[in-house]
């Protein structure tokens, strides 16, 4: 199947936005998770006896923070595969 110019533009726009979506969507979660982990390291070294609670809280917080990264991944995949012309 070959594409007309207009169809090509639609497909190009959806692919470009998939790339920008995943790229920018990866920025926030990773920064936030890094910040969480850094504070957890700080907390564990200050009070090592509560290491398990801190690690648990860190992981739960990171999982919540990760969710927007996963939303971006889903949207990027939809833009790549589900956009029909």
């Amino acid at each position, binding site marked *: 199947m070959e*594409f007309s110019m207009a*169809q090509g533009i639609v497909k*190009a726009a959806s*692919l470009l936005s998939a790339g920008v979506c995943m790229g920018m969507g990866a*920025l926030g979660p990773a920064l936030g998770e890094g910040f969480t982990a850094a*504070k*957890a390291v700080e907390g564990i070294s200050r009070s090592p006896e509560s290491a398990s609670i801190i690690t648990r809280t860190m992981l739960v917080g990171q999982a919540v923070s990760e969710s927007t990264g996963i939303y971006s991944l889903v949207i990027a995949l939809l833009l*790549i595969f589900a956009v029909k012309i």
Partner: protein
Amino acid sequence: MIFATEYIKVAAYLGAGICVGVGSITTGIGSGVISAKAVTGLMEQPKANEQVFRTMLIGQAAAQTAGIFALVISMLLIYGVSFDTVGGWYKAAAYLSAGLAMGLGSIGPSLGAGYTGGQACQSVARMPKQGNAIMGNMLIGQALAQTSAIFALVVSFLLMYSVPNQPTEASMGRILFKAVAFIAAGLTIGIGTLGPGNGIGYVAGKSTEMMGKFPNEKSKIMRTMFLGAAVSESTAIYSLVVCFLLIFAIK
């Protein structure tokens, strides 16, 4: 439309310039942060001269890695790729995108590695006795931060050497969206490594700082650093997956 080999050259040379230009901004900032922290550390503790100097040099070398990747990619874009007309717009877009990927992709890792190295210098100046443990942790942390730069390097290589030639019978619409898909792949990994590089660098920096303050908790600090860095890396891996899909799975 008549396709001239000059179009591919324009794209490749633009990519080469963007790559090393953008790549050297943050590599410079990262190394500068390390030496600044080393200098302030030495002001407080001039006796730790030797250890701080050594940590500074090794930290700066590690923070420069992404800049060297960018240099390699731009050299290859100038001298190491084929400018044959059969490549068509596919190759032109892929070369521009290879430069974007590595140029933007070196921002986050360099800043992260710079923060880590800076904290390590400060920490060594405060606790010269823990110098070796701190430097070991710094190097591991910087290596973790640089993994996303290596993702960008891989994508740049794929864009330079595994993109197919433009089929002769391809319609304008197909050419357009394939070319845009290659550019989007470069942008994805370029912007996508910004967060992970910075985030992991922050974790590693804090853990080197804390390792200087609380040397007895070494194993717990390092374990938490690895765990946090691995979670933070996940979005870089999503970006890499989307990149591969954009390069190889678009028909």
